């Protein structure tokens, strides 16, 4: 029997589909296995790079990825804290906070020193409007650097807001929701740090 006749048989269709699905899954499994380690290494390097971006150069001399603590948040979920040390002495903490942006969650990485002052803030991931809200990205503007050195007392708590809301932080022309979300998230991060300071130090 030639291929043309076999192809028309009813049993051929499910067999063919099954075979294709099997081959596809097999090649996906193989590709996932072959790339797993390289992807994990690349992502760890990314994380290390962003960690070193929020900390001033030479601030920490330990491997932050190996010195972590998990703390429960108010809503029950866990938050991973990376602890920075110099000569074995704890001198700061780095952690992620999330803000509700205009178009979705904004992931922010922030570093705080022992006195609760901000060492650095970087936006890791966002889906804000290009040209409007994306100025929170350090590649598109220096806005996130205005957080450096701020703490819960400086400016006063009621001034932890964008200027439109009576605060000290600039909003962008055409985009208020995005910077407002970032300010709120960073303030939340500072509050979280001051509540859990003893656990992070412990």
């Amino acid at each position, binding site marked *: 029997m030639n*291929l043309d006749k076999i192809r028309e048989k009813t049993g051929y269709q499910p067999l063919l589909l099954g075979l294709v699905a099997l081959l596809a899954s097999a090649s*996906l499994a193989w*590709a*996932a296995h072959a*790339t797993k380690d390289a*992807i994990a290494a690349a992502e760890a390097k990314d994380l290390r790079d962003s960690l070193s971006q929020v900390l001033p150069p030479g601030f920490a001399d330990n491997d932050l990825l190996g010195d972590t603590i998990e703390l429960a948040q108010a809503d029950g979920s866990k938050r991973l804290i990376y602890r920075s040390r110099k000569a074995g002495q704890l001198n700061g903490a780095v952690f992620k906070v999330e803000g509700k942006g205009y178009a979705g969650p904004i992931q922010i990485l922030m570093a705080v020193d022992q006195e609760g002052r901000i060492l650095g803030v970087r936006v890791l991931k966002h889906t804000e409007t*290009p040209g*409007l809200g994306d100025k929170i990205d350090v*590649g598109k503007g220096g806005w996130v650097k205005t957080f450096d050195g701020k703490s819960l007392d400086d400016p006063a708590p009621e001034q932890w807001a964008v200027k439109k809301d009576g605060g000290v932080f600039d909003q962008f022309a055409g985009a208020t929701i995005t910077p407002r979300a970032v300010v709120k998230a960073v303030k939340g991060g500072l509050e979280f740090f001051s509540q859990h300071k003893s656990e992070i130090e412990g």
Partner: protein
Amino acid sequence: MSDNLGTIVKNGLWENNVVFAQMLALCPTMAVTTSGTNGLGMGLATTAVLVVSNIIVSLIRKTVSDQVRIPVFVVIIATLVTVVDMALNAWLHELYKVLGLFIALIVVNCAILGRAEAFAVKSGVTASAVDGLAMGLGFTGALTLIGLIREFLGSGTLFAQASQLLGPGFSFLEVQVAGYGGALLMILPPGAFAVLGFLLAGKRILDDRLAARSVAATTPATA
């Protein structure tokens, strides 16, 4: 369809251009063309998938029956895109960070299934590979052009961050127009529709002119 490779290339690049003539793949076209670099990156990634999917579909075209060809092609394309996505993430991580969000979008690019259906399933492997390459480059050209126009009008730059995509050697491509803040509208979705509309009109006019000229050129000879 003709197996003449020259015709295939001309079809892919101009006559039957994915965006400007077939009007396929408009979703990625609108979504990623906020800058020339983005358009170029998306175009190149799509071209790679298109060439490989055309080759595979052409190879198995005699084995696959008509009844189940669509699911088979969809599974093949989805698998290819996922493998490309993982490989880029693992071994070309810097490039992946720029292109990452576009890669998954290639799955829903109807141009790829369209070429599998309209060409690769009826043609030999070489012709299919050339068709994939030509269609892909035509798509890349269209996306880069739309991206450059929107970027220029919208942000006053050209090929911003191209060195991140192509390597530091290409930083000469990056142009910044001094003293022009840009018209935000062009970066937002309406800008994409407007630019595409004007480009389509432009291509129509050009094609009409070319047709008129070739008629004028042949008329005396036949008269």
